[in-house]
């Protein structure tokens, strides 16, 4: 195995989970997120010489995945009312999870969801997120604050207590 492939393999194994969770947080659908992340990693492998030098390779993968999947998600939303069994696609989201919180996540503006995903699941700092998104750190803070304010309303008191 070449050095590049070994390096990519290590990155892939270590990053699959966090990247997938970040994309799930944005899309609300595990199956679609799985495909989007797989596609993003495939693109990362194609551009590995560039991605490996990226300051936040996982962020590159997540952003690529989200860009690849945006149209699918919108299409899914349109499909849901049309056939009962299609709702099964979302059943994984409702299974043991706070459906209201996830619904709130899905309804956040794209940029706010992106900030949440990068912040929570990739543990990126404000400045790094700002650099990734090409916006000012203060704008990241605003997006984060607005997203948290929205999500807070969906949290049950027990959840807030448990986390506190």
């Amino acid at each position, binding site marked *: 195995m070449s050095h590049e492939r070994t390096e990519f393999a290590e990155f892939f194994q270590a990053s699959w989970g966090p990247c997938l969770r970040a994309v799930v*947080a944005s899309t609300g659908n595990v199956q679609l997120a799985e495909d989007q992340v797989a596609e993003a990693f495939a693109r990362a492998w194609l551009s590995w010489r560039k991605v490996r030098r990226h300051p936040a390779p996982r962020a590159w993968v997540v952003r690529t995945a989200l860009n690849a999947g945006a149209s699918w998600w919108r299409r899914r939303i349109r499909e849901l009312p049309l056939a009962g069994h299609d709702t099964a696609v979302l059943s994984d989201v409702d299974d043991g999870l706070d459906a209201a*919180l996830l619904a709130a996540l899905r309804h956040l503006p794209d940029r706010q969801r992106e900030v949440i995903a990068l912040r929570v699941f990739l543990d990126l700092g404000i400045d790094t997120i700002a650099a990734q998104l090409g916006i000012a750190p203060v704008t990241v803070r605003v997006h984060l604050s607005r997203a948290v304010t929205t999500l807070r309303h969906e949290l049950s008191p027990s959840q*807030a207590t448990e986390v506190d």
Partner: protein
Amino acid sequence: MNDNDELNDSAVLSAVRDTISGLPMPAAPRLEAITARGRARHRRRLAGVSGLSVAAAGACAALVVGLTGGGGSARLAPPHGAGPQHEAAPQRSVPGVHLAAFTVAAGPDGTTTLTLNSGQVVDPSAVRQALAAHGIPALVTAGEFCRTAVQPAPGVGSVVVLPGRPLQTLAPGQKPAGPGPIVINGSAIPSGTELSIGYRQDPNDREISFTLIVAGAPLTCTSIPDHGPHPDDGPSGQS
């Protein structure tokens, strides 16, 4: 923003993390699958700049799916004999749908034909509705391939005929064709069963997969068609 706000923000973010982390996440695919997908993408990109030859190849790759309500073949007869196979029986007088991306039309002998054209983005919802109008219960997905834990009898091989493909099944007297119609015996789809049709949305890589699924059962959808045997398959696993 005071300390309490900070704490509350942290609590919210932790709740989000815990909620998502509670999801049963699929394991990472094999590295080979990722790198192969990357190579395929690379090939498509190279092909995309080669102009007319690719366009011609794409035209040849136009996929035609035939859906037959009767089939005229004992081999393709409904497995359970009498009785309607679906609540919505095939409506043979339903007019066809002719769009740039696909066509659904009534064929001879009660058949319905579906053509997915290359070089077009096909809306799965529109395809599903068009098929439903012809009495074909289908789950149509783009970019993912869905199946249920149990793949019901009679098995997709008895329902779908893929001309020119390794898994093709030919009805008696039927001649294999090149990029010709794929035939689906709609009446062989038992009640409570649907046909899952998944395809890649990439107009230049129209991989398509068929399987039978149990209507209403939980779906497992993957980015790559899963043609392998399922643990629940087999006589005891049939429903």
